[in-house]
């Protein structure tokens, strides 16, 4: 903990990781979507997960969030092997996920979405909508002070507001591990900056964040380490300070570590760029 306090930009990558995913395999029919993948994540660390379309990033994170079962492999939470078979299990271990699709029930309002699946109830077990609205107003006041539409269905909210609801849902329940799947893909510049600030703030609170993004600069800015996936496999996990964005780009496109790339391949890459 003292390591993170003195050097918040470079959290300790020794000791017990928050999450370890070991030798994860997922196949859909004959397609090997995730092949023998091993990654880890430490408290207060942001790990960027990058790769082209169909590289297996989303499938891998779905295994962690309980939305997809792995065919084989092991998940360790704070050093202990855990069985995650559905989203409820994941949430129990403090794993929250902001899905690319946001996964909101469009017909319900913001408080109902925020508390979906774990509603606050009165002593008699009735939904305590007022308490949920109150809590939503408080958390949204921090995340997006301009948010005022607490009783309209989220279908009529803007993209940024919907994103705020999805983020609020992940943050409210004191996640230890946060998965963010393309969190800024649908946002304008101001809202993107807000999300980036939020990532830094959560990181400082000691939360481990797995950040999936197409935007290499996003990842390079926010991540401590970067794991590159290519055709279902991890090419390499690198410390951000030891590589350039071009190195990462090369890994994404060629599926090889910077040292293994031949001069010819590099030339082809430059031609394409």
């Amino acid at each position, binding site marked *: 903990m003292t390591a993170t306090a003195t050097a918040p930009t470079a959290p300790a990558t020794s000791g017990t990781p928050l999450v370890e995913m070991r030798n994860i395999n997922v196949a859909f029919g004959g397609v090997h979507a995730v092949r023998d993948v091993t990654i880890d994540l430490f408290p207060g660390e942001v790990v960027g997960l990058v790769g082209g379309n169909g590289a297996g990033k989303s499938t891998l994170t779905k295994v962690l969030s309980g939305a997809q079962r792995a065919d084989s492999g092991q998940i360790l939470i704070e050093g202990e092997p855990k069985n995650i078979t559905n989203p409820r299990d994941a949430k129990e271990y403090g794993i929250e996920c902001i899905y690319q*699709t946001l*996964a909101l029930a469009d017909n*319900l309002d913001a408080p109902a979405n925020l508390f979906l699946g774990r509603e606050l109830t009165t002593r008699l077990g009735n939904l305590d909508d007022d308490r949920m609205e109150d809590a939503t107003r408080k958390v949204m006041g921090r995340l997006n002070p301009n948010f005022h539409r607490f009783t309209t269905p989220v279908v*009529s909210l803007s993209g940024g507001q919907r994103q705020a609801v999805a983020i609020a849902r992940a943050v409210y329940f004191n996640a230890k591990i946060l998965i963010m799947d393309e969190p800024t893909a649908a946002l304008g510049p101001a809202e993107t900056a807000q999300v980036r600030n939020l990532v830094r703030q959560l990181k400082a609170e000691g939360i481990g964040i797995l950040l999936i993004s197409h935007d290499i600069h996003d990842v390079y800015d926010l991540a401590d380490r970067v794991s590159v996936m290519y055709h279902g496999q991890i090419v390499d996990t690198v410390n951000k300070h030891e590589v350039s964005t071009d190195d990462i780009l090369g890994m994404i496109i060629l599926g090889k570590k910077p040292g293994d790339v031949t001069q010819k391949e590099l030339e082809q890459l430059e031609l394409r760029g």
Partner: protein
Amino acid sequence: MTDVAGVTPGQVAGRNRQSLGDLVKATEIDLRLFGMVLALVVIWIGLGLANPVILEPVNFLTFSVQAASTAVLATGMVLVIVSRNIDLSVGSVVGLIGMGYAVFMADIVPTTIGLGNPIGWIIALALGILFGALIGAFQGFLIAYAEIPSFVVTLGGLLGFRGLIWQFSGGTTVAPNLPTFNLLGGGPEGSLGGIWAWLLGAIISVAAVLLLLSARRTRRKYGFPLRPMWAEAAIAVVSVLAIFAGVFVANSYHWPPGLATAYAQAHGIAEPPGGLVIEAGIPIPLLIVIGVTIAMTFLSTRRRFGRDIFAYGGNPIAAELAGINTRWVVMRTFILMGILCAISAAIASARLNGGTLDLGTGYELYVIAAAVIGGTSFAGGIGTIPGAILGALVMQSLQYGLGFLGFNSPQVNMVAAVVLVAVVGIDSWNRRRAR
């Protein structure tokens, strides 16, 4: 500034009307439901103009008893449709359970618990509800866990359960029911009359006002925006007036003289000159509808189960990812539907004093129509219980009213068809425009 030049006349008019619109908005009334109440009033005014006799209290009572069976079912159909399913089997399930009641009471009760047993009707009803829940669980399991489309499963139910009624009864009508059970079907004796009706009206009024007050208190506690006081008062006054108007109408119908005389003789009451006046009051089927409406509204808006149904209907994947056990939610909506079928069957078979082979035939279509007229969307996630009740009342008003005016039932069906399609058409046009 360029905006001003581009303003269309419609927009200007909209701005001028804004004060009136704000006034309505301040009451936070569901405009859709309000519109349906208005439509219902218009229908009855139209019927009254065509033949004023229809506005006599006895007609309202008969009408409400006739609407009761489908209204009870419509409350469950809303939740089934909200969860992106359909139940085509409700008519056959009502028929099957109705026949079950009759067989139990006519063939089994006399030799087992005895005809004079005061709780015979309760046992019958409890068995029927259990039977309904089992049928619902069976169909719900096939839909939620075996992943067979609900349209197919319940189409099978529509055909299969109707066939089962014939097997079960030997192809004949089975009668009679226990007289105490038949009170569930209404009639002069199956009503809550006179002072008791007023008392019930008073209790419901007090409860409604208390609910309004407590909602306002919690909203103030959390510092949420409040409805203006006048709006709050207006809602309270209108609600209480409506409740007492209903009781007044129900009590305006008196027992037929012959029945009153028989009652007076049986109870040793000296008949006053001009005959004994007994106020009929609220029929028990109507009380059941009121109870079911309150319970189902509570279930769908105040309980986790209801929230889960709506979340699943709005976005099944989101519900799954939120950790909701979606299969169990879907299965439970069908169990609930089965229970409501048993209640509906009790009302319908009590009115007939037995089980007939065609009891409930065609219910599914009226019930689905009621739910859809009441604003339930086949896209899932949208629908209200009070809306479905109003939808059932609209359907039944047309049937009863036009039948009263002398139209035959094929003609009534044609009118109902036009109303159904027109209402849903206007509604979806409204929603598109609101986007």
